[in-house]
């Protein structure tokens, strides 16, 4: 009998795990995914509106790049989203599913707003900013600490816990804004007359400080995760709690500490939103960024520079979509659809990075 080189009834497609893939190919897979997503989105735009997709993408491009002001708006939005992403990165690297970014941002923003309103007239500006900073970080840290403490003690499911904490925060914000607004129909701009607690205008914009702070955070978090002892501990705990204990790492302490940091940065983001961007607080101040940032952090594999890229892509889409909305009298929810499609494609493309599909009859040449 001659040696058979092929099986007869092999399934048409099989899936095999990859052992790593060159960097260039990784980039290529993702680029193709985004391209395909844009094609699908173009088809969607065309069939729904009958508009020329290329023209629509042109308008979208305008949404971010038409004027310097628009660029600065995009940078502002990028900074806000990226800030939450940076906050979530250490938690996710520790395999702690912090779905509660939304609530942590809100509660931080609320703490900022309360400080502005109640201490705004009594504290000198520098001290007021310090107080706002401390209050927001502390509030966010508390929101991160609570689920972490229960997880570390009784292994309480953190995904669901942090999710619920979002709504607790929303209720508290609703309650406090209700008190602050008194008889008025809405809260409106805080400290409108005194501008106490507003960031000063830098290079023509109040949110320039937001951008600078987030830029610093991007580098700082990158270094923290990669070069610090804390970052090393986070990586070990995320890989295996058994290994961490073996290495003498106090898992509970690392978990709680990391979630305090994660929550505090989220709270800080609330501070930036209130002091540098909105000058007010409402239940929608976080605007779903706590959830979007999860996707940002995950897709970037916790590398803050990749996170900046992905945040930029999402902000670009969002601004572009609102530009289409006004140009073609559509509505800005188109952004959610376009974003959703792109996310689906990027998420799906990970498969081709981690696995490979073996066609019938194909043997493992690259393995031998």
């Amino acid at each position, binding site marked *: 009998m001659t040696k058979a080189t092929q099986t007869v009834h092999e399934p048409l497609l099989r*899936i*095999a*795990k990859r052992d790593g893939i060159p960097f260039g190919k990784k980039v290529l897979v993702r680029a193709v995914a985004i391209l395909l997503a844009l094609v699908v989105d173009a088809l969607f735009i065309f069939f729904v509106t009958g508009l020329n997709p290329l023209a629509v993408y042109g308008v979208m491009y305008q949404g971010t790049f038409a004027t310097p002001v628009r660029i600065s708006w995009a940078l502002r939005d990028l900074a806000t989203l990226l800030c939450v992403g940076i906050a979530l990165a250490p938690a996710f690297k520790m395999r702690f*599913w912090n*779905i509660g970014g939304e609530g942590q941002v809100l509660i931080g923003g609320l703490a900022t707003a309360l400080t502005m309103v109640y201490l705004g007239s009594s504290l000198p500006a520098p001290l007021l900013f310090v107080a706002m900073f401390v209050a927001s970080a502390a509030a966010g840290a508390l929101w991160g600490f609570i689920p972490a403490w*229960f997880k570390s003690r*009784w*292994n*309480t*499911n953190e*995904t*669901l*816990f942090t*999710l*619920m*904490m*979002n*709504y*607790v925060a*929303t*209720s*508290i914000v*609703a*309650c*406090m804004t*209700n*008190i602050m607004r008194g008889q008025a129909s809405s809260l409106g701009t805080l400290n409108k007359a005194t501008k106490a607690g507003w960031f000063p205008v830098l290079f023509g914009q109040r949110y320039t400080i937001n951008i600078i702070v987030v830029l610093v955070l991007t580098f700082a978090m990158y270094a923290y995760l990669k070069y610090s002892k804390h970052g090393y501990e986070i990586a070990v705990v995320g890989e295996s709690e058994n290994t961490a204990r073996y290495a003498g790492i106090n898992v509970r302490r690392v978990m709680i500490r990391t979630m305090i940091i994660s929550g505090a940065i989220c709270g800080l983001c609330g501070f930036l939103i209130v002091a540098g961007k909105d000058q007010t607080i409402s239940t929608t101040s976080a605007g*779903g960024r706590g*959830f*979007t940032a*999860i*996707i940002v952090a*995950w*897709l970037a594999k916790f590398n803050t520079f990749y996170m900046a890229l992905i945040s930029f892509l999402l902000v670009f889409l969002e601004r572009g979509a609102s530009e289409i909305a006004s140009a073609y009298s*559509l*509505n800005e*929810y*188109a*952004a*959610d*659809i*376009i*974003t*959703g*499609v792109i*996310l*689906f494609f990027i*998420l*799906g493309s*990970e*498969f081709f990075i*981690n*696995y490979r599909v073996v066609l019938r009859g194909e043997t493992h040449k690259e393995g031998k």
Partner: protein
Amino acid sequence: MSSLIAWILRAIPFGTIIMYGAMGEIVTEKSGNLNLGVPGIMYLGGFAGFASAYYYENLTANPNPVLSVVIALLCALIASTLGGLIYAFLTITLRANQNVTGLALTTFGMGVANFFGVFILNGSSYSAAPLANKAFAAKIPVLSGLGTVGQVVFSYGFLVYAAIVLAIVLFWFLSRTRMGLNLRAVGENPATADAAGINVTRYKYVATLCGAAISGVGGLYYVLDYNQGIWATTEQIEALGWLAVALVIFTTWKPLNAIWGAYLFGMLYWLYQFLPSLMGISVPSYATDLIQMVPYVVTILVLIVVSLRRKKENQPPASLGIAYFREER
């Protein structure tokens, strides 16, 4: 007394919305898939159901109420199943991360419903499908007129009773049937199920799609019954979707608990409006904002208690959130 009745009359329809959402998610999670796209799916179901009923009413000369119910249900089921299909394909076939995919689906579903909703609204602040609403909200004749009991028990649309029946059917399915047993095994330990000859992929797909379909009915019920057939402020669907996810935890993954759990959540949710008058006190409006957190706080407490007691039967399916790859080494 009358405010207690009013409270119940509000709580049960409210509970029904999240009961559908939660039952769908229970089915999905029993297969080991944690689908955080429930809000998005409820959006899809609610929107498709409303849009189809709306167009049917406005484009047909003599619309038939029964037919409008059938059309709305069918469209809602199809739309939410398609939403589930996106999630299923990405997480089961392509093994994408479940949490992230679910959140993306929520964004997507919200976008689709609101974007296309604008075409229906067409510039107005709300549009309605009164015929479908009447059909969906029709009380049980005769029985609903039987005094207080009739009012409290029999004065809801048929989907309220369908939800209870569905919960019982799901209980029976999960605990008494071959497929139910197999499904639970897939969620607990897919490798074992696979070795036993169960087609893990198929079970995960079917459970996720069926779960999405059931969740979608919650959105449909919200728009065409609870919200009086009006497509207007729809932000609440997202909050309801997350509440449904919370309810799943509260039930400890048991469909029968979803019945009373959902109504309890309804009571808790409307606590702020009815409790003060029931106790004859007046509560400032800011306090009512605070009371709204009660269902979530209760869920957190349940979560903590379950983790404290560590009873094996009350834990989430063991492989929840983990993709299955047979040749994993």
